[in-house]
């Protein structure tokens, strides 16, 4: 995957977490992912369409997600409540929206977020698109951004 699509997500997650959660994020070495299993139990998913297509997943262990959502919302929600899922969705929305704003000369739309909660769930991405995992650490635990995006055929032809 072109590094021009990785850097915006690194900048974005650091900006979103520092602005909305007042929490620094340490970003570790990105790696190519080879299986469909989500990194952790809670996944917020956003689709991208337009000049760049694919999906972005923000994945957390339940305990970390719970602590992060408490910091984000200023109150604690049960992991199985709609409010918890809503907050996870808004976080992935902000990280993805903010990142796509940094793509150079690309017209990209994002979908409304979906949230999946449960151990061992799988997220299938397009077979023609490699998935890059960016491991992140916070004071409240680890999380991962999983990016499976590529330029659309139309955008590639135009370039």
């Amino acid at each position, binding site marked *: 995957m072109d590094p021009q699509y990785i850097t915006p997500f690194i900048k974005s997650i650091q*900006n*979103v977490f520092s*602005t*909305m959660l007042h929490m620094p994020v340490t970003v570790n070495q990105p790696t190519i992912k080879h299986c469909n299993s989500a990194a952790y139990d809670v996944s917020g998913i956003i689709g991208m369409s337009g000049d760049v297509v694919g999906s972005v997943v923000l994945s957390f262990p339940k305990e970390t997600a719970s602590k992060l959502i408490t910091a*984000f*919302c*200023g109150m604690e929600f049960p992991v199985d409540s*709609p*409010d918890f899922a*809503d*907050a996870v*969705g*808004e976080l992935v*929305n*902000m990280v*993805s*929206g*903010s990142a796509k*704003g940094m793509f150079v000369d690309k*017209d990209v*739309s*994002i*979908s*409304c977020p979906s949230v999946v909660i449960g151990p061992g769930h799988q997220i299938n991405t397009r077979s023609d698109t490699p998935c890059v995992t960016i491991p992140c650490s916070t004071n409240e635990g680890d999380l991962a951004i999983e990016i499976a995006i590529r330029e659309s055929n139309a955008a590639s032809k135009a370039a």
Partner: protein
Amino acid sequence: MKILLVDDSKTMRSIQKSVLTQLGYTEIEEACDGQDALSKVGAFEPDLMLVDWNMPNMDGITFVKHIRQNDKTTPIIMVTTESEKSRVIEAIKAGVNNYVVKPFTPDSLSQRITETLTKKAA
């Protein structure tokens, strides 16, 4: 001062509501998308609207265009992750008065709200 919050995320509406309450605004109505907002705007008659862009059923830009067909004056602030220049221009052309990019600090949102209401009062 009556304020309508239009965002599909309850989390985001709560964060905005908390900023507005701190500014002393307590008459707040919430809508979860553009369609819901259109159904509430007539009865509520807001003095200010904070509108998200990406929402199910009817997005924020479509809602703004609907509103501006009949109401050219009620201030609208777009509060969205859409930060591209082209999007900001599109929103302003549709009739948005001010623009806040998520993520935002309470101070930056407060500043935009005050700025927008001051301009309207002038």
